[in-house]
């Protein structure tokens, strides 16, 4: 039923990169994430699936503290990255976000040139020693984002002038240009055609060698193709979490089964 050929390869999934304990998220009075516990492995791809509005994006945004920017949002519980509590007072969210990159659900290129969009992170963090270095980072990121061929002749055109799908890949390239350790991707292929999707999936597979990747997706096939672990969310609860092969072939929870076979959602 699903293409699960790539799963279970030689990756070391035993070391835990991110671990969430009893995480609760509230938007004002809305309880959006209810007591979620999850351990996300290093150097692996974890997929979050679940019906719309179940809290996938909300939980993802907890991992790099992007929820701090929402006034009404409150996060309880602990999230540890490499054993360190990221909600500890001593942790600087700015530094955290440099380490935990994010691709947002809606493409959000800056109103700058394509080049400056990519160079933004490296410049801020001083990743490039000189212009040539920066050029190289930009080119490499754009190539990995599977968009280099389309934009190489107009690097100085505004990034907002690209098509929706191109913008999405630009944002992916922008996120990987800062070389984060963890990459959070919120539906990165929602506006992409099958060819670009395949390229992005290839990228994700490649990133797995260095980073841990968390990807939110509405496509079961995609989850099955790229991830080693899958988490199924429903109404703010983490219903089931396990090896992707197990979730898709032998779900333990009845809600998971209904969802992946298309009965709820």
């Amino acid at each position, binding site marked *: 039923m699903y293409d699960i050929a790539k799963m279970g390869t030689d990756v070391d999934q035993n070391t835990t990169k991110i671990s969430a304990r009893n995480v609760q998220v509230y938007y004002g009075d809305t309880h959006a994430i209810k007591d979620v516990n999850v351990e996300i492995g290093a150097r692996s791809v974890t997929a979050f699936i679940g019906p719309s509005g179940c809290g996938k994006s909300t939980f993802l945004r907890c991992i790099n503290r*992007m929820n701090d920017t929402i006034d009404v949002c409150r996060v309880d519980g602990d999230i540890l990255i490499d054993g360190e509590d990221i909600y500890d007072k001593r942790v600087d969210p700015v530094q955290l976000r440099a380490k935990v990159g994010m691709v947002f659900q809606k493409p959000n290129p*800056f109103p700058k040139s394509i080049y400056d969009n990519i160079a933004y992170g490296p410049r801020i963090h001083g990743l490039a020693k000189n212009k040539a270095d920066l050029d190289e980072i930009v080119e490499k990121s754009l190539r990995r984002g599977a968009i280099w061929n389309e934009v190489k002749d107009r690097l100085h055109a505004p990034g907002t002038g690209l098509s929706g799908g191109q913008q999405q890949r630009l944002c992916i390239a922008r996120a990987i240009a800062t070389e984060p350790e963890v990459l959070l991707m919120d539906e990165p292929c929602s506006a992409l055609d099958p060819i670009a999707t395949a390229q992005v999936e290839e990228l994700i597979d490649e990133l797995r060698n260095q980073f841990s990747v968390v990807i939110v997706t509405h496509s079961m096939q995609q989850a099955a193709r790229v991830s080693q672990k899958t988490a199924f969310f429903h109404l703010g609860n983490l219903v089931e979490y396990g090896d992707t092969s197990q979730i898709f072939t032998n779900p333990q929870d009845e809600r998971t089964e209904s969802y992946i076979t298309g009965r709820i959602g």
Partner: protein
Amino acid sequence: MPLSWLVLIVLALAAAGYFVGRIRVLKLAGGDVRALHSLPVYYGANVALSAAVPALGVLLLWLLIQPSLIENTVSAMIAPEMIPEGSNLNLVMADVRRVADGLYTAVETGAMNMAQVDALQASADVRATLGELGVALGQDVRPEVLAAAKSYLVASGTGNTARMVVVLALSLTGLVLSMIRTKPDYRARNVVERAVLALLMAAASLAILTTVGIVLSMLFETINFFGLHSWKDFFFGTIWAPNFRGDSELSILPLLWGTLYISFIALLVAVPIGLFAAIYLSEYAGPKTRAFAKPLLEILAGIPTIVYGLFALLTVGPMLINLFGQTGALGVNWMSGATSVLTAGVVMGIMLIPFVSSLSDDIINAVPQAMRDGSLGLGATQSETIRQVVIPAALPGIVGAILLAASRAIGETMIVVMGAGAIAKFSLNPFESMTTITTRIVSQLTGDGDFSSPETLVAFALGLTLFVLTLGLNVLALYIVRKYREQYE
């Protein structure tokens, strides 16, 4: 019959029409509202509108046209050689109108009848008679003026009678015609709809026409001015020195320089402070601070500019002298009087702060949150995000806001009248007094100068230039702001 009576009668006819129209259509429909095309009120309104609108419209036109028609015929009676030395046709006609007005009052109050007026001979007794009635004349009435005044009186009498007849006839015709048309299947609702549309359009065009009117009246006076004074001196001369000997040098350049210099200093004060305040309010302040600070800042915008003027004259000026004056804290003796470019500029800058900050705040808030998230998500700090993403994204709008502020600064009057001084010159020293276009307009018009001398008329040329300048800035600013808005919609 006085005008107000005429209007009242027309309105009464309309009101009566309203009720009769309603009743009539209901009766025609046999009392069944569902048999009507429209609700009864629409039939009533239709009759009322037909009775009032054409009649009042014609009345309005009549009021606009009759005086100038009479003026033209009467002024033809005054031959050029009858105009005394040092006067002109306009002045003579003003006399004629005054005498005619006096005679009219005399007839109205019953002090004289038309025959007596006809029999009046030009002599001192006209002046005396009118004087008793409270109409003071500056000099004895000359025969030709009296003759003109008499025909003026007769013509307006005839005009007024004709006006009454025509207006009443129109009103009645409208009433009767619409009454005949009032039948159950008449589409009264649609007619009323069109009347509403016409009303709204009239209001909109009135606003535009007034602007056009203002510009045209300024334009005519400006053309008069350029008939008396060389335009080359006005636009390209370098000296502003009005006098009453007739050889004034009236050049806009020194005034323009003062205006621009003071506006520049005002912007130097207002733009950074206003912008920083806006950034703080929109990016850093919590909802509570914002709810309290934003209105507070906007109160500044509601302070009348004359109060700012006082503040300039009584507080800021002396304060600056204490700093830069002879016995000042810095001991530099740069500044001698309280009025200076700096005084006016600083106070005007304070006045503009809320203007800049509230516009910029709106514009910064319009930058989508996703843009900030993108930057923060890459590990940028808040101020990096603001500097490198938010402000560049909002820049066109902010530039627009600054241009709007500049156009206010250029047109500002009270603060410069009180704070800037009255000396027209080119100088870079901000501690000196300087003057602006607006202050000179005030002083040229408030003296007791003759309204047809170039020294007075120059005010219109200055005003028109100012208008063109600020209009240009506003158009540019709106263009930029609008272009920017399109980006996110």
